[in-house]
């Protein structure tokens, strides 16, 4: 879930500068990830423009109270580096191999899991992490969490024989991750550990790494992630557009080469802007083939021309001829006059019936012919004639029917034959054949009709069959050339549709991206300014004699072009900084960059541990370093490990308040720690140096009293902080409390009893253990204002020294 504070800043900026061409949902969706962005692009409701506030509160600020190491690297037996868990500078000094760096490495491996320094080393080196003189390995750090009585203990244990990665981490006595106490992100953003190796190599990294190292502390990660999300979506969209566009040139060439009319349609669609994808889709699905006047349609019509069946034709012709032959046969002889004869004979029989007994023929007058036998014979003949006439009529009717049927067989010329335009196959023979076929001879003569049908019909069948075959072949040929193109188009079309949708979405995403980038840059510059100023301040303290001055320091660019810009000048001439700086200067610059990063108010780590920053530095830079460290130590606990005596020397020279702890390693990796110097020690030493001087004039004795007073104040201040921390008070309270006492006795009362008003009880309490307390405190209270020390000033300092020890509260059990 993105940082709620950041989102509200973004929302406020949106109110002030809405982006054109995009929508707030798109910008806000970018914070919820890729799916959300795609959802908005698909037209889903932006949804959840409001976000839940960050769930967990920030972890408590912590100071470092102790690092305990056992069986790790240079440390064998359990050794503890105790630190005063409060702002201030602590130097841990020791020769190389004294085990000093083992403490910082241990802390690093405790907090970060693996030591960054070791990641780059050989396995042999990495296998040497275990101390030779000790079997099991334990690293433990105690952190004083602000406002809590009990320290937070973080420890990592390795069983005998376990690998470096096989450790058990426990936090506050329970096995759990640092993530669970909210440290994972701060450890990445505000790393409180800086090894010498990192100092050396920090500026060797690419500008984008430096950018990342510094940008992490700005808390703009979500904003950058949102930008990256949008960028990723946009790149995918653009890739989709390109993926569709890439094959188009090749497609166009193939289409241009194709004679297919569909190719022309598709070409036209591809040449229109934007592509007419619907037209291409229709062409592919074949709907376009049904178009009027389309050659393909005509070809397929021609290929499907109606076929005159040869059998039917022959049957028709035969039927015609048979019917006609029958009529002809029946008409031969009397057949044609059968009806007339029958009529005549019938009339004669009637007449004969009326002239009873007469045998003479009324026509020719011949006697004796119209007999009964005649009458009987004629009657039979009449019946026969009537039958013949009937047969002829039937035959004629049948012939008419055959002619009508044959005529029906002859259909008009079909439309596909007569359409204009060249279908690519010879239509003319079939057309002519059909026309001749259609020209039925006039007169209804069955024989001529049969002959027409017989001849023209055979011709028609042949011509149509030929045309159908060639049309089919032409269709096949066209399909063969078109199919591969069509296949390509079929797979291309969905990509092209996606691309068109993508192309429409790109501007909105781009606008949202630009908007977010501007918002990011604006917030980044705003948040980076104080850091850049701190870096500048550090650099001017550290540079000392360097002729390199640091100009503008800023974070610029985005994504792959992000970089840390270091402008500067050498002896007043603008120059690329990193190239002209010495290694010592580079270390200084890296430290200048690191200290502000580790000192961000948002960081829960109120301590920084720096391992060996002094190497390769000029003496004057060591002084600058000491000054910069002391400045950082005003509100941070700064722990510096060094093998170089120059830093503690510089700290002493410059009289900077610091605690110096010496690490020494005896045989068998027994590491011992000893406090060499501290603000209290320093003042006591100074007081002794003056007090022991032979011939010290009385006027100078008050100098001793002044240093003694400072020693007591330093001891009391430290004691107050320790007491209040154990009471679970917050640091801000401690500082406020320390502002209050106006006299030394009040401060001592605060240290001894936690109550500044009990100053009257201070002397009786201290006098229990130190008889000289009363007079000593009286003189110190006047301090530099003229406390006259009676007797031996050195003895006086000894009393003060013992008083400072009485002020320190006892170490807690188990600490």
């Amino acid at each position, binding site marked *: 879930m993105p940082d709620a504070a950041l989102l509200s800043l973004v929302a406020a900026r949106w109110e002030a500068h809405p982006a054109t061409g995009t929508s707030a949902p798109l910008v806000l969706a970018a914070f919820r990830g890729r799916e959300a962005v795609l959802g908005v692009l698909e037209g889903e409701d932006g949804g959840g423009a409001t976000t839940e506030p960050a769930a967990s509160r920030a972890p408590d600020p912590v100071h470092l109270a102790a690092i305990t190491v056992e069986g790790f690297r240079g440390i064998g037996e359990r050794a503890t580096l105790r630190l005063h868990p409060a702002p201030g500078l602590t130097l841990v000094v020791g020769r190389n191999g004294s085990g000093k760096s083992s403490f910082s490495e241990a802390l690093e491996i405790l907090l970060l899991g693996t030591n960054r320094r070791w990641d780059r080393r050989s396995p042999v080196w990495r296998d040497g992490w275990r101390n030779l003189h000790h079997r099991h390995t334990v690293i433990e750090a105690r952190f004083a969490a602000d406002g809590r009585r009990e320290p937070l203990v973080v420890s990592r244990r390795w069983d005998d024989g376990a690998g470096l990665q096989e450790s058990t981490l426990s936090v506050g006595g329970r096995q759990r991750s640092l993530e669970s106490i909210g440290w994972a992100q701060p450890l990445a953003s505000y790393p409180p550990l800086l090894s010498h190796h990192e100092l050396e190599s920090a500026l060797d990294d690419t500008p984008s790494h430096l950018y990342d190292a510094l940008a992490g502390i700005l808390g703009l990660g979500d904003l950058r992630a949102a930008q990256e999300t949008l960028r990723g979506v946009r790149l995918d969209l653009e890739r989709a557009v390109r993926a569709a566009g890439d094959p188009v040139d090749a497609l166009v060439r193939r289409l241009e080469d194709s004679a297919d009319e569909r190719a022309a349609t598709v070409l036209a669609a591809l040449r229109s802007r934007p592509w007419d994808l619907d037209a291409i889709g229709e062409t592919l699905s074949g709907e376009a083939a049904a178009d009027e006047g389309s050659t393909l349609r005509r070809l397929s019509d021609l290929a499907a021309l109606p076929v005159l069946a040869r059998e039917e034709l022959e049957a028709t012709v035969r039927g015609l001829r048979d019917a006609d032959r029958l009529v002809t046969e029946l008409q031969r002889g009397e057949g044609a006059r059968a009806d007339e004869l029958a009529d005549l004979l019938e009339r004669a029989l009637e007449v004969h019936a009326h002239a009873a007994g007469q045998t003479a023929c009324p026509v020719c007058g011949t006697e004796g012919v119209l007999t009964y036998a005649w009458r009987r014979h004629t009657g039979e003949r009449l019946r026969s004639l009537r039958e013949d006439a009937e047969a002829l009529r039937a035959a004629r009717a049948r012939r008419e029917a055959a002619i009508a049927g044959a005529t029906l067989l002859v259909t008009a010329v079909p439309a596909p034959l007569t359409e204009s335009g060249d279908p690519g196959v010879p239509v003319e023979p079939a057309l002519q054949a059909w026309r001749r076929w259609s020209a039925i001879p006039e007169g209804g003569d069955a024989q001529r009709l049969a002959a027409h049908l017989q001849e023209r019909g055979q011709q028609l069948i042949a011509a149509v069959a030929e045309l159908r075959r060639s049309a089919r072949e032409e269709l096949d040929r066209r399909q063969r050339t078109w199919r591969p193109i069509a296949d390509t188009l079929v797979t291309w079309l969905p990509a092209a549709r996606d691309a068109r949708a993508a192309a429409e979405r790109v501007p909105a995403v781009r606008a949202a991206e630009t908007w977010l980038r501007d918002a990011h840059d604006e917030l980044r510059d705003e948040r980076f300014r104080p850091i850049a100023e701190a870096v500048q301040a550090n650099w001017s303290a550290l540079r000392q004699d360097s002729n390199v001055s640091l100009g503008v320091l800023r974070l610029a660019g985005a994504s792959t072009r992000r970089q840390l810009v270091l402008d500067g000048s050498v002896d007043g001439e603008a120059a690329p900084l990193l190239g002209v700086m010495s290694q010592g200067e580079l270390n200084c610059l890296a430290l200048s960059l690191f200290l502000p990063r580790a000192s961000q108010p948002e960081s829960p780590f109120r301590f920084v541990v720096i391992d060996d920053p002094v190497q390769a530095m*000029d003496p*004057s830079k060591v002084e600058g370093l000491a000054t910069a460290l002391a400045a950082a130590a005003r509100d941070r606990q700064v722990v510096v490990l060094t093998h170089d005596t120059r830093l503690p020397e510089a700290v*002493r020279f410059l009289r900077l308040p610091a605690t110096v702890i010496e690490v020494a390693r005896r045989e068998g990796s027994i590491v011992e720690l000893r406090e060499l110097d501290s603000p209290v020690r320093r003042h006591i030493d100074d007081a002794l*140096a*003056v007090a022991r001087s*032979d011939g*010290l004039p009385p006027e*100078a004795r008050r100098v001793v009293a*002044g240093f003694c007073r400072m020693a007591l104040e330093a001891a009391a201040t430290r004691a107050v902080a320790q007491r209040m921390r154990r009471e679970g008070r917050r640091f801000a309270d401690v500082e406020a409390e320390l502002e209050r006492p106006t006299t030394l006795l009040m401060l001592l009362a605060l240290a001894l009893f936690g109550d500044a008003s009990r100053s009257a009880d201070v002397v009786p309490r201290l006098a229990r253990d130190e008889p000289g307390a009363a007079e000593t405190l009286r003189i110190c209270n006047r301090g*530099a204002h003229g406390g006259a020390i009676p007797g031996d000033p050195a003895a006086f300092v000894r009393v003060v020294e013992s008083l400072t020890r009485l002020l320190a509260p006892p170490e807690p059990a188990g600490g």
Partner: protein
Amino acid sequence: MAEESDPHALVAAARDVARIETEATAGLWPRAAALLTRQALEAAMARLWAATAPGLERTSGRCQVLCVGTLLGDPDLGGRVTLAWNVLSEACHHRVYRLPPTASELERAFEAAWDLAEATEALACEAAERRGRLPPRAEGLP
């Protein structure tokens, strides 16, 4: 001898050594300037002790510089004088591998010595006024 030397003049001489290049001082100037500046500090402190704590000039250099802040009532200047003293002492004791002080270290030492001379003189003037007469050096001023 130190009492008779003028600290201002000694600082000015040290600055000249550091600034003017001649054959004679080539390679030697940092140590020469350091020596002159330390003498300036000793001279200024001697005047300071004369006015505040006679006899202190006979104690060790470390003791003296530690007393400057308190007896002058200026802890900051005291710190700077201590630092300058440390730097200069390192330079004045010949150590084969010890690098001479850098120009900026010397510059800060010059400033500390000069400021101490000024503060000492102001203190001496105040003391003389309280006694009703001006110290010898102030009398010579226009």
